[in-house]
């Protein structure tokens, strides 16, 4: 029998069935601009990602006229990109979905209301992201329908820090 009392975070997360990895990081300072890849980004608790368009207090995003405290950082599943290609024949790159963090091995749709570690930072998932026509306008790809129910996760940052490509993602429950 597993020792759940003395297990470390990695073991606890594994017991819950998943351990993920940060595969890509992207940000952009203003609406419409291409997302730029980064090897590391700085998450500020209660605010957002340094230099990103949805950093609270310095918002210049397409949806910034609709303030949302729980949209400090956004995540997307690498597996969805593979599914888009498999199911809809659409090649979508990690820089095109316009979420900040592309993760692998993380069941994002199951995390609403839960806390999890993204590298050294602690996030709380606030809601599922929904697809929008804005992404179709920017990418020129018909991805609205294929992304229904799998267009990522919005989170608030409880504990800030630096997130790097390759960092581990763990359940903090």
């Amino acid at each position, binding site marked *: 029998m597993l020792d759940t009392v003395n297990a470390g975070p990695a073991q606890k997360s594994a017991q819950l069935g998943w351990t993920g990895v940060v595969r890509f990081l992207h940000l952009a300072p*203003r*609406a*419409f*601009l291409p997302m730029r890849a980064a090897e590391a980004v700085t998450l500020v608790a209660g605010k957002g990602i340094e230099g990103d368009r949805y950093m609270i207090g310095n918002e210049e995003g*397409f*949806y*910034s006229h*609709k303030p949302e405290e729980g949209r400090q950082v956004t995540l997307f599943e690498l597996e969805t990109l593979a599914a888009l290609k498999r199911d809809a024949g659409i090649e979508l790159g990690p820089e095109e979905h316009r979420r900040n963090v592309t993760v692998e091995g993380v069941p994002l749709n199951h995390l609403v209301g839960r806390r999890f570690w993204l590298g050294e930072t602690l996030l709380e998932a606030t809601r599922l992201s929904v697809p*929008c026509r804005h992404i179709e306008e920017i990418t020129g790809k018909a991805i*609205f329908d294929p992304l229904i129910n799998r267009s990522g996760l919005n989170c608030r940052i409880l504990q800030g820090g630096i997130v790097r490509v390759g960092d581990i993602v763990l359940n903090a429950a």
Partner: protein
Amino acid sequence: MKARPITTVKTIVASIEEVGAGTKLFNLVDPDHWELPPFRPGAHIDLHLPNGLVRTYSLCNAPADNKRYVIAVKREAEGRGGSRALHDDVRVGDVIGVSLPRGGLEPDATITRHVFVAGGIGVTPFLSMALHLEATAQADFALHLIVREEVPLAAHLASLIDQGRVVVHRTSRTGRPDLAQLVGEGGSQTLVACCGPESMTCEFEQVTAAWPAANVHIERFVAPPPVIDPDAKPFTLSLARTGTEIQVRAGQTMLAALQEGGVEIATSCCGGICGACKVGWLEGKPVHRDRILSPYERERYLMVCVAGSDGERLVLDL
């Protein structure tokens, strides 16, 4: 919080250069010199000018030159005001909102030869295409530039003229060239394109009438009327609470008509799935195209981003 949604790409005028023939070149960049939204060779953008005018100009730089949008604007004293505003009022450092780029040369591996025919300032999209084709060596090209006397963007075209890839035809000296001769014989591997005044594009259209449509590209200075769905019909929105009537043009969304009429509507996905723009309706026959309202809800609500009307009048609870 921003009071209004951001609807344009924010650019700053980084430099303005006189390039001959009454033409100025404007370099537009992001405030942080971030990469700008990508574009195809010869694409165009709308400029939202400080005086409220919205005008469309072709980009004349190559897509790989991705941190700026370069437009060349000839001052038209008798024009509709866009070029005068840019020439007379816009200064280095001014902020100009622009649309996402549209149009331009579609990548097509089967095309091995391009023949471009430009009239005067109509050279701008072809300069972008020529720079792109020269840099990528994807396909051969020839650009015939027809001018009365003075060549716009002469310094920018100089090396291509020296290479013989741009041929200048001065009508003041040699008369108007025979377009049929310039474009030569058609073929599935040749793409011909023309941008210039109406008389030139009409003649070009006649000369290439027998060509496959996919191999002919024509850009006009004045945009042709938008293509409207033949089944779409205009209708009237009646706003019950304010007593306002708003006309929805054939093919226009209810949302766009309401926004034009100054009605503030919350929106988000604009595809009928998020529910942000849900509005009550009271009379009429709405056509529901959303993906979330239940049959019961549809008896009371609609999504203005995608819904239409099956009647001439629809009453909304606004």
